[in-house]
């Protein structure tokens, strides 16, 4: 494969707070290739949403202290002017947000909101944009698209709203799509269909997708690669198979153990992770998961474990002083 679509290197995002600087993202690196679906998993507050917003450029130097590198198709996103970045948004890079009700404009008809995005392209006139918007509504699976064009957000169901949001995001066939917990606000039955829609669109339009979720199940079934985030850092990274089938970092294992599941006829009781994520203003000195980790060793308390490639599996990296042994993992 040629150069990746999105390349994030050593990204640090720091907010000023009354109590001191808060590092929401701390030294994260990430690659997304064209057509690749990358999942970012973590608890709330792990920095995954901040990461995606910064990677897209929505969160800029005005809002936080940012260091590191973000390159989109070889261009330095952080060095761009507001205008240059805006030119990318909605055309090359797009985002689908968590809550479709609050993300859609309450008054403007939904069709108009798609048209507005389409009209970013100067070649689009009003009639063409309207026809295309109806096409898009149809494509994301909204029945009677023509009629729904004039609907307002509160008149649609949750799933429909998210479909509209997706239509808005893919309107100009972007090459990179961020999805921030796109199904969290939806019914479980609707979730699956929305996720399938993402799969389909990524395949057909060869969109690079960054899917942020707290739901391991979602990531397991609908992404190719995954990064597990904990307290602003990436604790484990690799293909979905490697990371979720044979997790090495103790946090990943703990997360997997916390999911209620029935598999192979054997019922395993979920084991919740005790304790709370650390305070990011005053994080623990060593491994940030150490205070909650059942397998912490002496080194965990005062030395930061580096994110290192696994010896045997290429592309699988983890940051742990006392990794889960491979044979124990299923």
């Amino acid at each position, binding site marked *: 494969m040629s150069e990746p679509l999105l390349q994030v290197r050593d990204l640090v995002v720091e907010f000023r707070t009354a109590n001191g600087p808060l590092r929401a993202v701390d030294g994260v690196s990430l690659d997304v290739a064209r057509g690749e679906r990358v999942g970012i998993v973590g608890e709330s507050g792990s920095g995954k949403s901040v990461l995606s917003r910064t990677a897209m450029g*929505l969160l800029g130097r005005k809002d936080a202290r940012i260091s590191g590198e973000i390159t989109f198709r070889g261009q330095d996103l952080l060095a761009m002017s507001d205008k240059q970045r805006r030119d990318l*948004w*909605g055309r090359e890079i797009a985002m689908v*947000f968590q809550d479709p009700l*609050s993300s859609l*404009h*309450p008054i403007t008809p939904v069709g108009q909101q798609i048209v507005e995005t389409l009209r*970013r392209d100067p070649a689009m006139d009003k009639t063409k944009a309207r026809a295309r918007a109806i096409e898009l509504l149809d494509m994301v699976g909204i029945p009677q698209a023509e009629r729904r064009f004039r609907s307002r957000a*509160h008149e649609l169901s949750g799933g429909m709203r998210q479909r509209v949001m997706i239509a808005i995001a893919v309107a100009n066939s972007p090459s990179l799509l961020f999805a921030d917990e796109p199904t969290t606000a939806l019914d479980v039955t609707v979730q699956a269909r929305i996720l399938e829609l993402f799969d389909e669109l990524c395949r057909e339009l060869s969109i690079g997708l960054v899917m942020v979720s707290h739901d391991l199940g979602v990531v397991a079934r609908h992404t190719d690669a995954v990064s597990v985030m904990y307290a602003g850092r990436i604790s484990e990274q690799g293909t979905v198979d490697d990371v979720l089938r044979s997790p090495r970092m103790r946090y990943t294992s703990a997360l997997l153990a916390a999911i209620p599941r029935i598999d192979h006829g054997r019922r395993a009781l979920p084991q919740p992770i005790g304790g709370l994520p650390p305070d990011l203003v005053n994080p623990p000195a060593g491994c940030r998961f150490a205070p909650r980790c059942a397998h912490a060793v002496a080194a965990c308390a005062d030395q930061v474990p580096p994110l290192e490639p696994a010896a045997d599996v290429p592309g699988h990296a983890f940051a742990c002083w006392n990794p889960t042994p491979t044979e124990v993992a299923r």
Partner: protein
Amino acid sequence: MNRTRLLRVGLKVLRLAAVLLVVSTLCFFSLALLPGDPARLMLGDAATADAVATLRAQLGLDLPTMERFGHWIGGVLQGDLGESYRTGQSVTEILGERAPVTVELIVLSQVIALGLAVPAAIVAAHRRRTGTDRALSLWVFTALSTPDFVVGVVLIWILSVHLGWFPANGYAPWSDGVGPHLSSLIMPAIALAGTSFALYQRVLRADLVETLRQDYIEVARAKGLSLTRITFRHALRPSLLGLSTQIGVTVGMLIGSTVVVESLFGLPGIGDELAGAVTARDYVEVQGLVLVIATCFVLVNALVDVLYPVIDPRLASSRRTRGGAR
């Protein structure tokens, strides 16, 4: 859904009618029940008892109170508000002459107030908690705290006396030409606009700040839209509810403020007339004018109520309107 809305509007109208009926009753009885004989007051202490009695008969004051009330209400319903004790002119005639001046003054002041308040609110909301926002807020507070007549006096002092740009006093009708007409209204309009400007800026800024925090604004940003487009196409309209309520309330309030401003600038409007009538204790005129002012006030507020769903279609389908502290 439509039927219930119709019913709601109907109930509102009924309630309005009831309020207006009570308002006019109050107007009348405040005159009838208060001590002091209008005829005696008008003629002064030196007048003979005979003269007072004659005037009483002339004015119909010798009839029983209820009968007078009947007459008056009957007149009001036919558009007859009685005649001024002072001039003998009918109150409706006075209104016809003077209302246009007041209406124009209020409209002009609202144009000025909104013309300043909307940009000021947008700037302040975008630069929340910066020096610009705080400077604007100080201006707003000062405008809010300065009585109209103080602004008026200062305007006369600077713009008329020192710079000689506008006449300090008096009214030039349209027939004198557009220039003189407007320059006779501009200072009173500015004096009147101060409070409205302050109220509008505060309300709109607060609502805009709230709107700008909404997810759909971030979505609009993520679409790559320009700040101008986001502000005017996405943020402004959902933020107009508070402002429109405020305009309704404020316009009503302004009818009161015109009393002071019109007297100060010698404009022949309703406010000036009311001040004169009050000073001269011309009760028939006062009650007529107050009734009309109250009616306008109530109607303006009702109009805003009706306009809500137009401003924000979400309200057409939801049961509650905002700020319903009733």
